[in-house]
């Protein structure tokens, strides 16, 4: 039935091979001397099979593309808007103002006392947690849109598809750096220089959040192509998640500690299945709690997160006077164990995300 001919007579009639091709049967990267005298180019043999790619070598040749995609994300965001990049500053500041009014003025939640920075500002505490949170949430949410929005590229050209969520995360990271730098300037101006000393730890913590965000972005953007509900569901998920993370309220309300008025708040306890837990322990199951607390501790308090466990301190009374030496929990508490938990989680999310993405990315051109 089939008239297929693997070896057609015409094969022999083809023009003689130009000399450039010297590949052996399993030869890789034969040297090419084509282009009529241009510099010789190495030519790669690419093999494409049913199995997923698991090599990292090809990333090298796509560096340029990655930069291009990232810049595009950054530029396209505020295209055709008058204020343009101003929005990236206005948004967090507006959020800050709203939360400060609602939480600090209406609900009269006292800001935590920064030890040793002696900062006492709800707005600054909020920014320390909110900026990383915005990067985290924005990376994941926008990756989903980006993967859908680049349908045409994915269906017509080949490149490692994870570059698209990757570029979105990178663009968020760039904005995050700008915002964080401004926050640092403010903190150093009104508060404590120690935040600068701990800058390397801040950077490591940012790196952990970014790694986790990348993993989540890979999972969510891929999943969203198959089930578009994920995007809608994520709006709710991140809203709830944010309130389960001490971004908008101080940590002492959960785990106890010193409030800005110099009063020691007791830890909250919860009774669950016949056991009693401290609410702080439950909150710590959420690794983003550790991340946010680390930022608050490093930037707002001006202290290493782990040093905040149990400290002797001079409480500041409501009149601003210094009280007698007291012992107690202060500040945002992240033990080294918590920090390791955060790191392990971030790496696990990233590995799982990359693995899932590579496992299913081949179906993207068909499913989009």
């Amino acid at each position, binding site marked *: 039935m*089939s*008239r*297929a*001919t*693997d070896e*057609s*007579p*015409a*094969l022999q*009639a*083809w*023009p003689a*091979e*130009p000399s*450039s*091709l010297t*590949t052996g049967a399993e030869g890789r990267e*034969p040297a*090419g001397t*084509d*282009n*009529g005298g241009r510099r010789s*180019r190495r*030519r*790669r*043999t*690419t*093999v*494409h*099979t*049913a199995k997923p790619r698991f090599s990292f070598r090809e990333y090298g*040749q*796509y560096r*340029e*593309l990655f*930069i*291009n*995609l990232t810049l*595009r994300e950054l530029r*396209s965001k505020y*295209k055709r808007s008058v204020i343009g990049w101003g929005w990236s500053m206005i948004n967090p500041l507006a959020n800050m103002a709203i939360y400060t009014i609602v939480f600090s003025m209406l609900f009269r939640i006292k800001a935590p006392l920064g030890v040793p920075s002696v900062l006492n500002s709800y707005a600054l505490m909020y920014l320390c947690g909110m900026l990383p949170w915005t990067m985290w949430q924005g990376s994941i949410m926008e990756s989903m849109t980006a993967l859908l*929005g*680049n349908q*045409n*590229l*994915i*269906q*017509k*050209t*080949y*490149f490692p598809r994870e570059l698209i969520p990757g570029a979105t995360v990178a663009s968020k990271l760039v904005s995050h750096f700008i915002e964080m730098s401004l926050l640092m300037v403010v903190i150093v101006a009104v508060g404590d220089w120690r935040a600068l000393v701990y800058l390397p730890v801040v950077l490591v913590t940012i790196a952990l959040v970014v790694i986790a965000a990348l993993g989540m972005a890979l999972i969510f953007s891929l999943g969203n192509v*198959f*089930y*578009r*509900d*994920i995007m809608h*569901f994520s709006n709710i998920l991140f809203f709830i998640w944010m309130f389960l993370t001490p971004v908008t309220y101080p940590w002492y309300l959960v785990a106890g500690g010193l409030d800005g008025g110099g009063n020691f708040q007791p830890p909250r306890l919860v009774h669950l299945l016949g056991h009693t837990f401290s609410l702080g322990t439950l909150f710590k199951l959420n690794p983003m709690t550790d991340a946010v607390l680390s930022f608050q501790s490093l930037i707002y308090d001006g202290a290493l997160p782990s040093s905040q466990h149990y400290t002797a301190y001079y409480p500041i009374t409501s009149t601003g006077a210094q009280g007698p030496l007291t012992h107690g929990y202060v500040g945002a508490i992240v033990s080294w164990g918590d920090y390791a938990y955060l790191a392990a989680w971030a790496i696990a999310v990233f590995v799982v995300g990359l693995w899932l993405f590579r496992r299913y990315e*081949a179906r993207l*051109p*068909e499913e989009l």
Partner: protein
Amino acid sequence: MAVPVVSAEHVSKKFRLYHERNNSIKAAVMRGGRNKMDEFWALDDVSLEVHEGSTTGLVGANGSGKSTMLKCLARILRPDKGSVSTVGKMSALLELGAGFHPELTGRENVFLNGAILGLKQKELQDRFDDIVDFAGIGQFIDEPVKNYSSGMYVRLGFSVAINVEPDILLVDEVLAVGDEAFQRKCLERFSDLKYNGKTVIIVSHSMQSVLNMCDHAIWFQRGKKMADGDPRSVVEAYTGAIVLDEHRPTEKGDRWGSGEARIERVELLDEEGREVTRVRSGEPLRVRLSYATSEPVARPVFSVSVQTLQGLVVSTPTTREADLVPEKLDGTGRVELSLPRLPLLPGTYDLTVSVTDFTLAHPYDVRRNVARFDVDRKGQTEPDGIVSLGGSWGFDA
């Protein structure tokens, strides 16, 4: 033996066909976690090799898997079985335009695509003018590509694809969108590429361009490779198969119309009135149509259309130009078109006959490719072409 630069080994590709496609978790849960779907093999165990410096044409009916094959070669689709290996830089211009982002300007897209093909910013800058020149879209380069016409879109896409100096170029059927001038430029570029030892794989439905450009052709049918080799024989096998397909005595498909008047029989007759399927160039031929009506029809027009196997219409004489339109036609009868000297050059031709109303807009009965005949050479004939213009030569010294 030459080493292939593109080789596909036992490549199979399946698509999932979702009935009532619904990308939502609710739908998935209601189906019990599984999508109700059929599998469909768009490519079924296809192996092929393309050698350096060749121009290969992929031919086949719509939906036969040509574009799917090209996407597997371009690494856009991953085969479910088998493997594809390629040597050197590949650039592809797939069906329905290039991989452009509609919101970006032409310029931004050029840089984006260049980066995808692995060019450095600097190298692209050097080539940018060439790319814009070749595309010939002028100041539109700074417009978002969503505002481009489809021809401009393809022009820019093609211009990028060839100006990045690929070793292998894949082109899917898109050039037909370009205007005459652009198509000509493209053909020149293809021959440049060939001259420089580059490899080109094109998908085309124009058998003429496959024959003109390619030195190798592959015919796909329903996801299988049917023939592979010299373009002339592959194209003949393919077009022959179409003709065979269409000559099966099916009443449906090749016949349509409202049916008040019907053409019951079509005969090709030679001088002596014998029925023939083979005639000689320049000899007499008569086409006789037998009709029957189910109710009286006013002012019917009969026509006979002669086509080449590639679908080119050579001529469509009708009874209207002959001023032979009866006011009313009823019952049965015959109409005859008589050609005293058949001007067709040797080859195979198809006849499509029809009876319509006077405006030609309403068909009573159309029978497509109802008869096929071969024209043989008679004495000296012209080497190339479809019809003989007749005429005579003379020197004027």
